[in-house]
């Protein structure tokens, strides 16, 4: 069987180095996992698999109101409403992200150590540029910051570090967004429906790829 592989994640040590190096931030003021998260155990090895879960059902959500506002604003910039599908906020993606960074598992705890300082950094950057937290910026102002984070070579080391938070945050958002039926439609996943037969790829797909169905009816 294949082992699920995890996306690359910033090691905690690196994140601490990053923020320790940022002179504007006092390390002791950073929200640390031990102080702010209440979850100590996960769903265990025998959860009810047929139940429908919502974020907060298994462990408490821990983002503060300002953190949630910043998360909503950033997630909507990354996943806006468009011809592919609804905005992140319409799918309540903030709850998924809150669940993710509040989870007790090592990968998610590492993400917490990236996301929480990153959200704080984003508000500080917004404040220093526009004297408002990120959630109260207009779209042009939000875009200005995110374009700097997405530049091929971010202009300053500080922005380069912000860019790493941005990419990780985006990966978490993508995981949540595309796990919804709306996200399936956006990315082109078709399936999870019972059918009497499996006909394989449609003829137009085979034609486009120059393939022939080699398993004949029988």
């Amino acid at each position: 069987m294949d082992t699920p592989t995890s996306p690359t994640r910033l090691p905690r040590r690196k994140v601490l180095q990053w923020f320790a190096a940022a002179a504007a931030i006092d390390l002791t003021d950073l929200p640390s996992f031990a102080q702010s998260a209440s979850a100590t155990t996960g769903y265990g090895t025998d959860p009810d698999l047929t139940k429908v879960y919502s974020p907060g059902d298994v462990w408490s959500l821990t983002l503060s109101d300002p953190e949630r506002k910043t998360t909503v604003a950033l997630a909507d910039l990354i996943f806006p409403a468009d011809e592919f599908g609804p905005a992140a906020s319409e799918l309540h993606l903030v709850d998924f992200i809150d669940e993710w960074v509040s989870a007790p598992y090592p990968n998610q705890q590492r993400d917490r150590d990236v996301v929480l300082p990153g959200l704080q950094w984003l508000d500080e950057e917004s404040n220093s540029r526009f004297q408002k937290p990120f959630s109260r910026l207009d779209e042009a102002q939000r875009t200005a910051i995110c374009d700097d984070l997405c530049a091929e070579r971010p202009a300053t080391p500080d922005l380069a570090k912000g860019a790493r938070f941005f990419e990780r945050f985006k990966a978490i958002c993508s995981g949540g967004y595309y796990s919804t039926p709306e996200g399936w439609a956006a990315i082109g996943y078709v399936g999870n429906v019972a059918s009497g037969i499996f006909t394989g790829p449609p003829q137009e797909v085979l034609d486009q790829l120059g393939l022939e169905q080699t398993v004949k009816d029988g």
Partner: protein
Amino acid sequence: MPTIPISKAKPEYDVAIVGSGAGGGQMAYTLTLAGLKCVMLEAGRSYDPMTETAMFQTGAQAPLGGSSTPDKDFGFFDATIDGGWDVPNEPYTQASDKPEEQFKWWRARMMGGRTNHWGRISLRNGPYDFKPYSRDGLGFDWPVDYDTVEPYYTKVERLIGVYGSNEGLENTPDSPEGVLQPPPKGRVGDLMTQKAGKKIGVPVVPIHRAVLTKPLDGPTLAAKLHPDNKKAQKIVARSMIQRAPCFWATDCGRGCSIKANYQSTTVHLPPALETGNLDIIANAHAREILMGKDGKAKGVLFIDKISGKEERVKAKAVVLAASSGETVRILLNSKGGEGVANSSGLVGKYIMDTVGSNLKGQIPALENIPPHNDDGAGGSHFYSPWWEYGAQKAGRLDFARGYHIEIGGTRKMPRGTSPVPGDYTKGLYGTKLKEEARRYYGSFVGLACRGEMIPNEGSFAELDPDVKDKWGIPVMKWHWKWSDHELNMAAHAQDKFTELIEAMGGTALPNPKKPGAKSILQGGEIIHEVGGALMGHDPAKSVCNEWNQTWDVDNLFLCDGSPFPSNADKNPTLTIMALAWRAADHIIEEARKGNL
């Protein structure tokens, strides 16, 4: 699944079976249909696939989108409960702190064991695979040959239902006409790989998997399986009729509430229970084989995990089918740690896993193809059986045994993690991000080497002298070593995968682990642990005979992968079941003769 408490157990059974997976399930099926009274001990809780399987649940309905966590290694919806590489209260230890010298031991503490989530890949060992030593002087021959086991492969395939095709390829046996179910259509990734394989001389054909693609003809099959046993025919036919064919949705790893695929809990245990000859005790953690003064097994000593108390079941014969590692552990822990069936000193020796090495490629031709349903049969459709027997015989390869290639497409249901690697959408957000994610989604093909490991002196398990589990039972300590055969195989696979990907016009992604030989996955990661109590012709050089019967204790049988003298690239489950059925027939015959 109905179980009994120990207080309701009979004073004595014909056979006590430890483990409820492929080996234990097959044993219980064959023995109880023949009228033998059996008790089965399962270390985990009871489990009902009819009500507990997450069939259509979506990522959005699970914590963390259903992605994998230390509690659920293969994701939230995987059928495994109370299992994984780390099981609470049940530690194991490593002799070395180097990862390449460690064995990751997967356990599934639940009714049906690993059969609930396994890949359902059901490949017959070929004639070469039973006589590897005779072919190349490495490892050990089996005391049985292909022709001896063949009728049992056919029986098992008829019972569990296996799809696939007969291709007439070297050492890749065909099944008798009419035994296999029709293979499913090739999916995009399958057909792309098949076409690329043609260019570079790698055959790609339908794989064999234990999934029904059409309803089973219960009465006809049951009559073939149990020609002289009307009661068995009736029970088995009824059980088969209750299984529906695949409805082409949801991963087999979740288990199957419509019983389209094989798992012990849907195929072996229901008819066994219906005979009235099987009692199952759950949460029964076997500790030792109870031995009599006459040198025969008298039953099993176990811990009732609910009460924490030591309990006993008595039987005229004992079958261990607890997985290689656990079967070895029970043997070594018996007689207060003195061990049983170990006059050869070989219990625990020569444990093998499968050589694993994976590579993914990105295929530009697959970008932005029209969305379509690629779910299929919830697992592999095509594979490449090993194709280089000739080159190996001519001495052109630097490893002695073969591997097969498993093919994975990527138009799958997203579950909690980004369906496209971050490198492909770096620096993007908004509509442009969604556009590029849609472009790249499904444009990847995964290729996986599953190859034969040759048994070696450095891969074994023994009792840890210090560490005990929650119930005070000494735990296994693992030793692991790859030989150059395995490492060179992984390097060959990586090269071949790159060729295949390039023949598709694609680019191989940087290996997430390491290139070449270093891409080999850790021992135990493929979860094909076999060996540890090898079968052979010579009591001094093996633990069991060809009937899975231990040389030292003639009413003790080992019916999981532990007797395997080699671990062909063919996934072990089908062979475990075939040999268990054969051993069960032997036990039945001995019982008829009054020898139990």
